[in-house]
């Protein structure tokens, strides 16, 4: 039987217990994502003195506060730009960013796309709850068509972002999506993302019963969590059915959200390239090149 990886086991080691209890509501998925991160960090044996957690503003962005390590809780949407500076000043640091769908792709979209394009060596853990949780359930750029938000009281008419498609198109080195209802695959994925040189991003679908579920009639917490099981599918399975399945099977899965690793490539990261540039300039100088 596989070891049961409960949060409890790692609490002493990684939690900043003075910050307890958390601000999270019952049924929130943020704690599960934190768990995945702890387990990945444990298995990688990451040096917590050399790891910095960065975030913007939102419920999800509160996660660094609960981790016993350096943390920079920045302004709404800007975490990736702050993280870029930290990494520039000290490339030896591991940088893990916690951000929300609103934080990262709403107000912070520009920083996200440029960091991915530049291939900045950071890991972005994006918690997508389809809403602006902290401020009480306003419309997020990820909100499904027709969903209700306090600022879309008659149903959302905007097309939502597919964040993973966006990251893929930008050439990010590692792109994955999971839901917090999966126990083990996400841990492995977070490990891969942290180890990856260059820009890595994992999107976690995560329930917000308070601001999203309630308003969208997704039922009680248990039912709401089940929605994620019922409406997601592993990409391998999806592809198999789409290739070999019956029409009926295809019909059943065609609108499900795909989960898995969507991109895993090796493009040189920005700071790798930058170091080469600096070396090049020094050799030129040593060869007595003109200024």
């Amino acid at each position, binding site marked *: 039987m596989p070891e049961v990886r409960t949060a409890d086991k790692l609490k002493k080691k990684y939690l900043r217990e003075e910050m307890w209890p958390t601000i999270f509501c019952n049924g929130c998925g943020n704690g599960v994502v934190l768990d995945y991160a702890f387990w990945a960090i444990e298995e990688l044996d990451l040096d917590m003195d050399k790891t910095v957690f960065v975030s913007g503003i939102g419920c999800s962005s509160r996660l660094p506060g609960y981790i016993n390590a350096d943390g920079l809780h920045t302004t709404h949407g800007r975490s990736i730009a702050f993280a870029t*500076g930290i990494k520039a000043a000290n490339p030896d640091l591991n940088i893990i960013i916690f951000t929300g769908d609103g934080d990262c792709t709403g107000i912070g979209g520009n*920083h996200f796309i440029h960091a991915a394009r530049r291939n900045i060596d950071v890991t972005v853990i994006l918690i997508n709850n389809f809403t602006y949780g902290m401020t009480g359930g306003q419309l997020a750029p990820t909100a499904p068509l027709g969903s209700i938000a306090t600022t879309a009281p008659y149903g959302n008419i905007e097309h939502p972002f597919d964040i993973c498609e966006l990251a893929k198109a930008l050439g990010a080195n590692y792109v994955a999506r999971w839901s917090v209802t999966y126990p083990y695959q996400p841990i492995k994925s977070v490990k891969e993302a942290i180890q990856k040189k260059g820009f890595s991003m994992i999107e976690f679908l995560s329930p917000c019963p308070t601001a999203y579920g309630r308003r969208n009639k997704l039922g009680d917490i248990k039912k709401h969590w089940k929605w994620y099981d019922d409406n997601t599918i592993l990409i391998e399975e999806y592809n198999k059915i789409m290739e070999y399945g019956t029409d009926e099977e295809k019909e059943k899965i065609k609108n499900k959200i795909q989960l898995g690793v969507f991109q895993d490539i090796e493009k040189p990261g920005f700071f790798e390239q930058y170091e080469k540039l600096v070396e090049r300039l020094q050799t030129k100088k040593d060869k007595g090149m003109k200024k």
Partner: protein
Amino acid sequence: MKYKRDPELIRDVLGKKIQFILGDMACVYGGLLAGCSFFGGYPITPASEVTEGMARMLPRVKGTYMQMEDEIGSIASVIGASWGGAKSMTATSGPGFSLMMENYGFAVMTETPCVIVNVQRTGPSTGQPTLGAQGDMMQAKWGTHGDFEAIALAPSNVQECMDFTIDAFNLAEKYRNPVCVMADGEIGHLRERVVVPDEKDIKIVDRVPATIDKKKFIPFTNSQTRNSKVPDFPTFGTGYHTYVTGLTHNERGFPATDKQPDHEKLVKRITSKITDDIDKITNVEKLYLDDAKTVFVTYGASARPAESAMEMARAKGKKVGMLRLKLVWPFPYKEIQKLASNVDEIIVPEMNLGQIVHPVREYVEGQCKVVSAPKIGGEMHLPHELYKYLEGK
């Protein structure tokens, strides 16, 4: 890049001791001399030459230059770099300065040393991109929300662009606050002779790193090792596990968003750590103040025509003087109070509709006459225009 300031390499890159360069470029020189190892910027007239100069020179001294996606990202990266252990800087002009305001406040609240060069142009909005102005002086003081203390220098010539950028880094490191170099399009795009100071003549201040036992360290309170309201700096990656947030926080750095005493204590400390030192920070130039009855209170570019007007008046035997504020914020109120009791009239020429004239009036408290001498539209005052204010004196 892990960076170590290398004076020989810096000098090698800067070149000759005496040069004829742009004000913007002098800010680059000042940054490099001060030990700046990270620059995040976004092009904007008339500050682009700072960004371009950094792009050319910073990699050659083994620092990191990055062109960010916008000015919000620029200042964010600069603050991040500072926590990573770098001395860091950005440069911009009005529209970019406006975009930076939220994170400017974040730097204040998190006590992050960093330098912002603002080569001012006319506004509001896009204004006159290539023309100089002094319209952002109040923005530097009040532009971000909430209570805070600004530190801002205003160079009047190209040499000062270099010298004040070095000073800005030193003040930022000492007080752990963002510091603005409020240049303007006139000085930024002016070419003048500069002398690159020798290494022995440069004063370099570094933030005091946290050194005490990690369990005893308290990150956001008076220094635990010195008599100072400025806490020692727990650089990321040195094992202090510091939580840094723009939320109101207690001494340990943890959110205290619903506690009045914590907020008052924090904001009073981060403002008074600067105002307590007003006598040490104040930096003014005094011309003919011994006998002057009419005095120009000036700063930045407008000090130049004011000085000419003063000389014209002096040649005619008029008792005119000048008090030039090299450092505008925190406001050198004691100098103004002293002056007000000794003179009949203070004239404040500014390339805006009257900004610094307001704190001048506030501290004069009716003791003498205060006259605003504004000029906007991207042209400097001409000496004879300012001389007119002296006629009949």
